[in-house]
């Protein structure tokens, strides 16, 4: 019986193969390996049956609380959104899921046309000229956009709004250590005046607090200073808000997870990156283009590959190779199913629920909405004496508050000195969840008055 249940070789096969190769055992092939390092004991557990491994994974899963299990207001770049049933049925078909990068276009048109459609849909949504075929995820996409700006301006200073998601900013800082870039963080309202000498201004709209930002003003300032404007965007917002392409933005980036991709505790996700035509040859990653075959049939291929690592090696625009293709295909299926009507409705429901909820919460004693100006589908809420209820989150990236069974985010030092809640709504936010949140905040507000003396 095989030890690897997925091996297709029987012992008889192995014997015949060894004979054909002319050896007695596989070890005869391993003479180049230092003897003392050969065949170590690893100390790994022994194998399991499928039934057993499933039971094991189910027992691990039972130790988590899923988003759907109770009131839920976490969000930000990763959002609990409705995924139509047809999305996984189509996007995860074996023919998509178990293919690789479409190196051979004759037998990969399924992948190539789907990704071409993804690029087209994203370009339409963001009103940008071109979208690439995917980046790893939002944060590193922002960093690679900054690299694009650095390459195309020849400048090494990146100016970034402090209302960009904390984790995105941290990722940019890490990446910046590679080419030794200078990163400056300023509030969005000061971005325009910090443009001098910058490769780019990076602004998020709607921002981390849900706030609406005058991107056009920032883009104008960037261009006046010879810099590029990079907007961090969210897919659904573009159904209702003026898209980056209409605001003078040069590069639009963002996290594509809300487009039909499960939250999956951190990934895999989808980095969106789109730009103006003039920047195409600075773009990182793969891009699919239309062409025709020898018989005149339309077809699609990976193109503009002279930007890429396998051709240009150390001169490539990025090192990215394996990307997030199946997530891009998923997003294409999602957008095709939702259409303008469905995407608009999902976006609107988030906005409507957020505003209704803000209205109720702001009426509680000591509470106020702390997002500056207008907000979209999430908002910050100032609550008296929040710290008491807070628990460190799964990734210390944000702080999540578990009040009773309500999951909600709390801002922390990483957003300056603000110590508020951030409340994200989507089309999935149910009335009962909103009631539970209101009740939870009400009790915090009440206990704050009682327990001020015992704080910290």
């Amino acid at each position, binding site marked *: 019986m095989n030890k690897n249940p997925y091996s297709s070789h029987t012992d008889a096969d192995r014997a015949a193969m060894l004979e054909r*190769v002319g050896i007695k055992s596989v070890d005869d092939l391993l003479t180049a390996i230092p003897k003392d390092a050969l065949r170590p004991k690893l100390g790994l557990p022994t194998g399991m049956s499928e039934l057993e491994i*499933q039971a094991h994974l189910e027992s691990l899963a039972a130790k988590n609380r899923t988003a759907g299990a109770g009131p839920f207001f976490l969000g930000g770049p990763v959002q609990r959104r409705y995924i139509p049933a047809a999305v996984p049925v189509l996007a995860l078909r074996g023919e*998509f899921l178990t293919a690789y990068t479409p190196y051979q276009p004759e037998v990969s048109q399924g992948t190539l*046309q789907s990704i*071409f459609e993804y690029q087209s849909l994203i370009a339409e949504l963001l009103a940008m000229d071109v979208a690439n075929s995917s980046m790893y995820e939002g944060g590193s996409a922002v960093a690679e956009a900054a690299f694009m700006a650095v390459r195309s301006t020849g400048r090494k200073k990146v100016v970034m709004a402090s209302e960009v998601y904390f984790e995105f900013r941290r990722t940019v800082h890490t990446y910046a250590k590679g080419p030794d870039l200078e990163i400056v963080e300023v509030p969005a309202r000061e971005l325009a005046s910090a443009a001098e000498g910058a490769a780019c201004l990076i602004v998020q709209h709607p921002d981390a607090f849900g706030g609406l930002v005058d991107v056009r003003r920032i883009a104008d300032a960037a261009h006046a200073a010879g810099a590029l404007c990079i907007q961090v965007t969210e897919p659904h917002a573009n159904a209702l*808000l003026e898209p980056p392409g209409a605001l003078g933005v040069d590069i639009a980036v963002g996290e594509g997870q809300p487009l039909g991709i499960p939250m999956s505790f951190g990934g895999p996700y989808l980095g969106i990156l789109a730009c103006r035509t003039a920047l195409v040859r600075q773009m990182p990653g793969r891009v699919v283009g239309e062409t025709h075959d020898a018989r005149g049939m339309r077809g699609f291929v990976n193109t503009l590959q002279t930007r890429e690592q396998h051709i240009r090696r150390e001169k490539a625009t990025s090192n990215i190779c394996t990307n997030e293709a199946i997530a891009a295909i998923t997003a294409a299926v999602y957008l095709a199913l939702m259409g303008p009507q469905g995407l608009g409705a999902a976006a609107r429901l988030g906005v409507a629920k957020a505003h209704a909820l803000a209205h109720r919460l702001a009426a509680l004693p000591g509470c106020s909405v702390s997002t500056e100006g207008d907000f979209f589908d999430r908002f910050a809420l100032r609550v008296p004496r929040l710290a008491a209820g807070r*628990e460190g989150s799964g990734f210390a990236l944000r702080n999540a508050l578990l009040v009773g069974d309500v999951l909600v985010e709390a801002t922390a030092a990483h957003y300056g000195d603000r110590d508020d809640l951030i409340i994200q709504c989507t089309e999935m936010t149910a009335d009962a969840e909103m009631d539970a949140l209101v009740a939870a905040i009400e009790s915090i507000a009440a206990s704050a008055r009682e327990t001020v003396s015992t704080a910290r």
Partner: protein
Amino acid sequence: MTIRTQVIPDSGVKTSVPALEPLLVEIHEEGRAGRHVRGGEEADAQIPAAFRRKAPLGLPELTEPQVVRHFTHLAQLNYSVDTGMYPLGSCTMKYSPKINDRVASLFADLHPTQPQSTVQGALTLLADLEVMLAKLTGMDAVTLQPAAGAQAEFTAILMFKAYHQKRGEGAKRRRVIVPDTAHGTNPASAAMCGFEVTTVKSDAHGNIDLASLKAALRDDVVGLMLTNPNTLGLFEERLREVCDAVHAVGGLVYGDGANMNALLGVARPGDLGFDCIHINVHKTFSTPHGAGGPGAGPLCVKEPLRAFLPKPWIVRDDQGRFHLDTARDDQPPAGLGDSIGRVRTFLGNFGVLVRAYTYMRTLGEEGLVEASNDAILAANYLLAQLRDSYDVAFDRPCMHEFVLSATRQKKLGVSALDVGKALIDEGFHPPTVYFPLVVPEALMIEPTETEPRETLDAFAAAMIRIAERAKTDPASVKAAPKNAPLARLDEVHAARNPTLKWQRPT
């Protein structure tokens, strides 16, 4: 070889040019819609006019029946591991078990910022996976953040940079050495870190040329990026000498683990001289390649590099509960310590990592060992059959893959690409072609352990038939494929006239 002819069901849509399948925008009709989500009209009043989208959202309007047919048709145009042998060298296109997909869905509905008390199951899994990977590679610490091999390379070279800086050698060390057989991501990653790349040639046995390497080694060297087995499918014969030489000048040795499928239980990179190694779980650990991704690229390092790993780290407290280390990256720079900081927004490609964990636990140590043995045997078995029909670049036992050269065929006018395209007509996915660059007309073949022997035999027979046809009827090989959904595509046209999105019919 059986040809399936099938009319694509007719949707009645006219495409602008002859096509296998219309574009979504070509099946659009105004007023079509599903009803997946509805409502929210009251939101419009909440958005100030200045911010509202002016141009209509021009996504195609479609119904669900149309979308289902569209993507079903498209899927059927793909060759995939689920349909046939996919011997793409360097990519380890082994079978992706369906149970891995099923169990991954158990964790689909977890938000990455949930409080630690609500995700103990997920954190336990990750912590255990780190331990398993460390044991497998013979390393001391692991980060699961990198999304793929290339990001692991970037992460590691950034760590090398931090390491040298910490030792006061940051300014001095500016060069990364890569062999000429290296994958393109290696020099690209080094360059992203601001380093200069020095390429070292290979010797007559397919090893890195030790003399050239030594000549390149000075105290300005950051490190060496080495793939082992290398991209020729060969185990570096003087590996310890290579590593020692690098270490001798204060450099570090990066292991590109794309070829770990040859080494499971065979040898630990940590025992061989590497300071770190990445693993492409989408290769070695069977996670589906997803038409190009996602993958995951855990990076395993030796103790001296631990402090530089991306934060935050998963740690276990006295009660056996998992949480994050206190030196958090939300109070940078102090909170980061020596860590380079995060390389992505959240933890890593969790959904991929669950699959890798499931695969490792399913096979167990003995199964993983068997997988590498079978993979090595399968490659050598194929090589034995093909040795006479194609040139072999470096003729010694290979590991889990090998590289042929179609130079002999090229003289008859048939290139490696032509051989690949002819394989399509024989019912196979072509191997990797023209890589590694050191082998002219390279055909890089990796059968993996999950292909049945009769399939390997059929592949060998097809390759031999093509070699014969190259002699007797080279034109027919150059005309391939003729039984694929499309004939060869005009890639030059695509690059010269980039059409990167559809035009809406007007």
